[in-house]
């Protein structure tokens, strides 16, 4: 309670603005990662494996929590959603990395390396980065009590950017849904080809 009285109204507004900018940057990075994954799939014909697709789902889950902060107002429940899916991303990517960490004939890493690092290892780094990003946000930008009063509506430019990014992420998810259907049908997913394409 003493901490609240020490922060002036203008400082609270600045902190809220920084918080929303931080969340926007996280959403932008996630959108870029998912776009890069789909570029590798459609441009270079690298079909995602089942665990790769689950990692995409986990990233969309992280984005869901961030998006809700802009649509419904800040809540720690949204942060919880994002962290839950970050842990899912971490578990799946660690499992996939362990799968391929030992060289075996016919069991190479899925896809090509980006900057010398393969996709599941990138996923571990991404999940760790998201966890670090949340830890930094909470410790540097504070307890976030001020966000309950500072609605995103007070920052129209940030609100507009958030809306655009949200629509892009929803569109990416819809494309992934269609793509997963064409690749897997209603059954198992394989990297040998699109099941519904000749």
């Amino acid at each position, binding site marked *: 309670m003493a901490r609240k009285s020490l922060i002036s109204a203008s400082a609270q507004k600045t902190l809220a603005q920084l918080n929303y900018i931080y969340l926007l940057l996280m959403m932008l990075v996630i959108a870029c990662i998912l776009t890069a994954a789909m570029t590798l799939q459609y441009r270079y014909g690298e079909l995602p494996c089942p665990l790769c697709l689950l990692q995409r789902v986990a990233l969309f889950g992280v984005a869901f929590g961030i998006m*809700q902060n802009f649509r419904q107002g800040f809540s720690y429940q949204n942060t919880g959603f994002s962290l839950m899916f970050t842990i899912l991303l971490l*578990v799946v990517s660690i499992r996939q990395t362990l799968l391929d960490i030992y060289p075996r004939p016919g069991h190479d890493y899925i896809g090509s390396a980006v900057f010398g690092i393969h996709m599941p290892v990138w996923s571990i780094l991404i999940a760790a980065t998201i966890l670090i990003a949340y830890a930094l946000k909470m410790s540097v930008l504070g307890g976030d009590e001020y966000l309950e009063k500072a609605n995103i509506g007070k920052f129209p430019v940030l609100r507009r950017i958030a809306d655009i990014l949200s629509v892009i992420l929803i569109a990416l998810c819809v494309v992934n849904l269609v793509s997963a259907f064409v690749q897997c049908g209603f059954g198992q997913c394989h990297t040998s080809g699109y099941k519904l394409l000749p």
Partner: protein
Amino acid sequence: MMVAVFLAMTAALIFGWLGRRDIAIACLAACFVLAVWLFLFEIYSPDYGFRMPWIRT
């Protein structure tokens, strides 16, 4: 099954965008459960499962 996971996530994002938070959270929970189930299926399935014999004792 992967289609169901993506369908639930897409529904969660769309309902969240439309302001139907309760439905969005229900879809998100369904997506999470399905994703975990599919992950466990993938790693334990005798037909499709990925094995890690080098860490088995």
